[in-house]
């Protein structure tokens, strides 16, 4: 149980194909991210799993069980909505207890049912039984919201609301936890905190989690594996380091982290290194390729500034600084090399000086750091 297997999923909306050829094999306990630009079909994929959309074709299995004929309320997928979707007419406790009430409703007799109903409409009239009380308080403690239990959800800050949404999904002990951009409403600091909270909880509880985001940093920092989507298709699935080091398309190279992407032509090879002509420059790469027209990809942090240091990088050029951007621990230079523009990241330590616009620098890149696609 807990694993999610998607085969050949396709979804059309009134004739328009929004998803196609989606194949995913998400393992039990895995923290899996769906990453991609706005409109690429992440939410739709998620909603197919949760059962809010019916796939046009293809199968979805949750823990060996084909869920095609199960209604959303029978799938046992916890979902954290982008907008949190907290019930504004209930307090935090009632929100979290909602799914437990529903469960109780299913197995009890008529009179108890009436009691549960009343409780769901007004929890002041009918009290919660001990086991629910305890379970809810446990989970609230877990997300550090114990003292906010009786507050209305509108009285909470964004991060607290997010944790209520999480608690509400977790308390039902779902087989799969689905989260649709749960952090996009939060500010940077809070986002970092919540990332840690979510990851800690997920690792503690080992719930299979699928996480939608369009923020590559978020996906990179949280996920065990990432599927990068574009235009309704999956481009690549892999661990964060995989995607970063071996993007299989220029799109991914650029989307996952920042990249310098240059078009070039293979003109030969030398000592196992491929030589590529870019404009009037040549560059060596240790990557092998059969193609003639290639995209050359170099990460900004893989370009070194040679402050008079020896030129032993295999590739070296001269450039003029066009713009220097200070990013805290990093300084990013926008450098013009011939007719090309390159981004270069250098670590910055207090006391280092930032180079002036217009000054000339020498750059070095080792062939292993030059990717060809």
């Amino acid at each position, binding site marked *: 149980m807990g694993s999610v297997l998607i085969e050949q999923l396709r979804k059309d909306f009134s004739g328009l194909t929004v998803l196609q050829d989606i194949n995913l094999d998400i393992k039990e306990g895995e923290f899996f991210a769906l990453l991609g630009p706005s409109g690429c079909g992440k939410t739709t994929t998620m909603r197919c799993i*949760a059962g809010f959309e019916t796939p046009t074709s293809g199968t979805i299995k949750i823990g060996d069980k084909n869920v095609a004929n199960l209604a959303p309320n029978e799938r046992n997928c916890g979902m954290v909505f982008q907008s949190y979707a907290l*019930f504004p007419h209930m307090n935090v406790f009632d929100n979290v207890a909602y799914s437990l009430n529903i469960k109780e409703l299913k197995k009890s007799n008529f009179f108890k049912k009436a009691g549960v109903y009343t409780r769901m*409409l007004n929890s002041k009239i009918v009290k919660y039984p001990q086991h629910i009380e305890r379970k809810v308080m446990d989970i609230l403690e877990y997300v550090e919201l114990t003292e906010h239990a009786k507050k209305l959800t509108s009285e909470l800050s964004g991060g607290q609301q997010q944790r209520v949404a999480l608690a509400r999904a977790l308390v039902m002990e779902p087989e799969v936890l689905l989260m649709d951009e749960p952090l996009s409403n939060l500010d940077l600091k809070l986002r970092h905190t919540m990332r840690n909270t979510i990851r800690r909880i997920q690792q503690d509880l080992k719930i299979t989690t699928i996480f939608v985001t369009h923020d590559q940093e978020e996906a990179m920092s949280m996920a065990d594996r990432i599927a990068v989507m574009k235009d309704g298709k999956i481009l690549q699935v892999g661990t964060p380091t995989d995607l970063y080091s071996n993007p299989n398309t220029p799109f991914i190279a650029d989307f996952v982290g920042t990249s310098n992407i240059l078009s070039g032509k293979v003109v030969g090879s030398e000592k196992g290194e491929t030589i590529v002509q870019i404009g009037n420059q040549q560059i060596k790469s240790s990557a092998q390729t059969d193609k003639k027209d290639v995209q050359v990809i170099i990460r900004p942090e893989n370009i070194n500034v040679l402050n008079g240091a020896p030129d032993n990088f295999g590739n070296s050029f001269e450039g003029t600084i066009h713009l220097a951007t200070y990013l805290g621990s990093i300084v990013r230079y926008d450098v013009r090399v011939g007719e090309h523009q390159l981004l270069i990241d250098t670590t910055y330590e207090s006391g280092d000086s930032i180079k002036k616009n217009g000054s000339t620098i020498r750059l070095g890149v080792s062939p292993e750091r030059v990717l060809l696609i």
Partner: protein
Amino acid sequence: MNKFKQNFMGLGLIKLLIYGFFLLFLIIPLLSVFLVAFTDEPINVFGSLVSWEQMQITIDQLKNATLDNFKAMFTYGSYFRGLINSLKLSLIVSLWVLIICIPIAYGIARTKMPFKRTISALCTVPLVIPTFISAYAFIIMFGRSGWVTYIYEKMGGEGMLIDPYSMTGIAIVQIFFFFPYALWPMVAAFKISDISLEEASRNMGSRGWLTFITVTFPLALPGMLSTLLVIFAVSFSDFGTPIILAPNDLNLIVVDAYREISGFFNWGGAAILTVIMIAVAGVVYWLQNYLLKDKNYDVLSGKPKQVKLNKNKALTIPLTIFSGIVVLIPILAMITVFLQSIATTWGRDPLPSGYTFDHYRTIFTSSLGNIQNSLVLAGGALILSAVIATFVSYFVVRQRSTTLDFMTTIPLIVPGIAFGIALIQTFNTAPLQLTGTALILIIAYSIRRLPYMVRSTVGTMRAIKQDIEEAAVSLGASTLTAATTVVGPLMLPGIAAGSILVFVTVIKETSVSILMAPAEWAPMSLAIFQNVLRAEYYSAAAMSVILVIIVLVLQAIANKLSGGNKSHE
């Protein structure tokens, strides 16, 4: 200094004008009718302000003030019974309307039920028909020799299916002809709840109807409660139905008030009834506000919501059938009115004894003026209320002017008869002798229907973010220029929506018209009412049909015009 000047040249001046308008035409008339309840005779408030002599008279009148009328209210059982009956009726009607509207509103707001558009369109028809006509149509249908009764008897029934000459009869007419007032606000109430809340609920294991009961319904409840107030007020102040059905043992407070003033010039009696009606409406309004405190959910999230509609046949088909039955009754009534309008005579038989267009011919020769009057008056009221509502909603939303907000709600709860009485008594003497002019009619209509307009424009205004206007100001525009070049155009959809309601309800309005319309400005609705009172039902029916046609045609035109303009929404 500069700011001061700016305030008084631009929006500040307009705000002052609006306050003046409400003071003059709403607050002072209502206050003076309150005084009349003590003095028993008309008081000339404005006269007292301009003439010392008149002031002396007024002071004398006030010296002689008594509590007799209030005592009479409780010692004469009839007023008191009228009040109780009215309360009972309005309560029953509001509850039933609520029950009837929930499924239809849900169907329209949240499902893809078959014939949704047709049903929505048909739901405006009952709004157009004056109630005394619908009541009369009810007699033709359900009365002793009505065609429904005929069918019922043919099918083996005894007597009448429903006795129209009873409280039940009145309630049924009101329910079926007033429900559209509640329907559209309720549709809006269902639309506010974020679809993702329902998905969250289902995601946590709850089935469709369980979700409805525990999430959708509680969220729509505040909207429903305020809708209830509207229906309560409309039912409480309707006198067309009871006057036509006239059960032999039922008096209602509005009817009493109407009779006191328009039958017996009993100012004291009318005033006390007016004061009581306003008080009751005020209490209901307060109660609603009290219940709704802290329950305003309508600002759930700033993100645009995508509404997914329910397509489940097991739900939508019953909903369509139910909605169909509900709209069927007013439609049948309308058909009945139409038949009546082309009948030579329609006696005890299920169908008219012959057909003719004579009644229409008569109207076109003798009542063309009334049609014209209706259009001019409704048009005037429309423009006036649109202009006022635009600025009022600006002040309410942007400057949080709760006073204005409250003032524009008063007309919603003051029964038309009461308001008419207040206006006549204030404006029938110098220096502001306006009764008998078209102007006071237009003003009265605008004030009465302003709440509908304001609700619509305030909604749109809320949707226009403040920063859009600030952007205009930061680009150098004065607040007035910003309001006219940016806010105004953006409010057009809201104004259009409100306009339809204002126009429809003004064109059929009777309570104020009966009291105040001079002959040369008599609108259609008044002509119909007078025809009904003279028992000239055939021409009354024909006029009603024309009224409905005019409204439908104008509405179609308005839809066309605003439809060509959708790109800005």
